[in-house]
């Protein structure tokens, strides 16, 4: 079964058309990248899949569950990490993980979930410090741990390494690869073409609310005679 099927997705805000009939599929176990210029509709797409925004028309299914009519069931199997997300500043890292875990499990299962989250976050003693004292890199590690500790079937990551330094971004990418290897299907958006090429099995380019091309990084490079995805991107969106 496909992890995600998006069919003829439209999203309007009044007379403004944000998504103009988007179609793409994410296969089970793959990392799928959404790329596109600012305002192309990437975040809107991710928010709709995450059940945060309504669908104007079209259909989205996550592992066969309909986002519009079975949103609570969808939320049980997905995990969404927004761009520049934060955590509750008055809680410690451990308390924050425990708070999130409480929505997925009880008792020993919940404790085990927190243990796994702490292992992924790898913050050492700082896991017991208040979140407000964390650096951006530490915060991102904690949030990725939060996003995957419940072992979702499908993770949605929006600009996951945005604003991070080289070392932190590298470590986060390593974590994402590990998550994918553990069987989690991932949909991510990024402006970093190197990251997309490095991480993604397949990518889709969105422009003006439409998917304008889709394929593997290697296939797209070959199709456009480009050396990298950045070049593909530029050629594809140039008028």
């Amino acid at each position, binding site marked *: 079964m496909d992890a995600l099927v998006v069919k003829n997705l439209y999203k309007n805000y009044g007379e403004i058309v944000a998504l103009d009939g988007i179609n793409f599929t994410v296969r089970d176990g793959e990392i799928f990248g959404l790329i596109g210029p600012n305002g192309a509709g990437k975040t809107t797409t991710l928010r709709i899949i995450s*059940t945060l925004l309504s669908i104007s028309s079209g259909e989205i299914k996550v592992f066969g569950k309909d986002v519009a*009519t079975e949103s*609570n069931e969808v939320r049980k199997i997905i995990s969404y990490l927004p761009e520049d997300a934060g*955590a509750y500043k*008055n809680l410690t890292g451990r308390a924050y993980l425990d708070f999130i875990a*409480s929505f997925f499990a009880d008792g020993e299962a919940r404790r085990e979930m927190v243990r796994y989250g702490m292992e992924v976050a790898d913050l050492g003693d700082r896991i017991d410090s208040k979140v407000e004292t964390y650096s951006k890199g530490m915060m991102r590690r904690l949030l990725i741990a939060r996003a995957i500790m419940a072992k979702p079937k499908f993770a949605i990551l929006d600009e996951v390494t945005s604003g991070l330094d080289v070392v932190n971004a590298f470590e986060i990418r390593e974590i994402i690869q590990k998550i994918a290897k553990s069987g989690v299907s991932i949909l991510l958006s990024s402006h970093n073409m190197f990251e997309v090429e490095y991480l993604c099995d397949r990518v889709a380019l969105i422009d003006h609310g439409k998917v304008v091309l889709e394929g593997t990084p290697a296939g797209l490079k070959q199709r456009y005679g480009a050396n990298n995805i950045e070049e593909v991107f530029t050629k594809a969106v140039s008028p």
Partner: protein
Amino acid sequence: MNHLYNLIKKEVKELLTPASVLPIVVMALVFASLGNLTGTAISESQESSATLAVINLDPTAENDSYAAFAIEVMAAYNVTLVYNGTSASEIEDALQAMKDQGAAALLIFDENFTTSIKAGEKAAIQVYWNMKGTGLFDSLSSAPVYNTLNVISSAITMELIEGQGSIVDAANATAPLVTYSNTILGDKEMIGIDPMTVSGLLDSQNMMMPILIMIIIVMVGGIIISSMGMEKENKTLETLLTLPVNRTTIVAGKLIGSASVGLVFGLIYMVGMAYYMQGFNLASADYDLAQYGLSLDLLDWAILALMMFMAILCALGLCMILGAFAKNYKAAQSLTLPISFLAMVPMFIVMFTDFNTLPLFLQVLVFAIPFSHPMMGMNNLMFDNTLLVYGGMVYLTVFTLATIFITVRLYKSDILLTGFRFKKDGSAMSLMKGLRRSRKV
């Protein structure tokens, strides 16, 4: 796994921090101390007799002198004299003694004091006041001096009247009437008390409850709107909304958590304000409210607490609706203004007037603002205005449910994340249109 409990716990943990509690406790302590200070000042002005300096320039023989008579009256009235002179050359010394010993004033009896009185003219006393400061309570020290002057004046009046020989009791002659007051208010008949005293007795709650409710509403409203602004700014709201828990539970968690924190803050304020108002209430310490049926029983207090809790829920509901439109923490701050205004209007009206004596349009306005009901709840319960009490409760329930319903719809709609969107022609999409788009989530 109790999602609601976890959400309430998280909300309380977020809101009940040392940084949020400390200012409340400090404010309550400040109120309590201010009340004690006021009480002490009022009590001193009422109870203590004056400490004065005196110079008698009247040369009339002591047994025939009204100035000497006045000084005797002062002694009988327990006035403490720090200086008692008889010469104009002693004025500087008397003033120094007044300052050194903290006397309230120096009274100088004019040299023609007795002559003037006997001639049927006004007699003069020159008063040098020892002003200790310009504060509100500093003026209270002048009250014992005025009391002393009034006592002297009426003693001389009585002496003059009795000196005519035709009147046996000058006290009765100067005040020939005695009144026994009974006050009827609504269905309540209060024996042996006049309306001024009743009003004085009720002053504390007339003042305290509206101020207290207003403070709580503004404070709790500010907290929840800011918390929503922060949730949006940090994008924790997006995380929360993608967890496997329904939106009604999230809204309920936020409301109950914040309302509980509001009640804790309210309790702290109530203690502080109670001490504060006690300071103003010493004059009516001789009267027992219960004696006149002006007290609340356990059920009344429970109703009042329930009204307060419901008003807080209404405020929180309104704030969550407003908070939904706050894009960040800073924007959230300005959204507390409508709530503050809504809390202040009934506060001032209830503090200075009675609902029953208001013109109809103001009655409708006061009734329509949910925060009015706990503000006037205490008086309504005391005076058995059951229609207003229970009508208010029903209205609060309807209002609370309506705000919760709208809040839940907002949480299910796009507006929470996208705010108002504008059409190409510049007109805003209506709230109802946005809400109609909310989904089954």
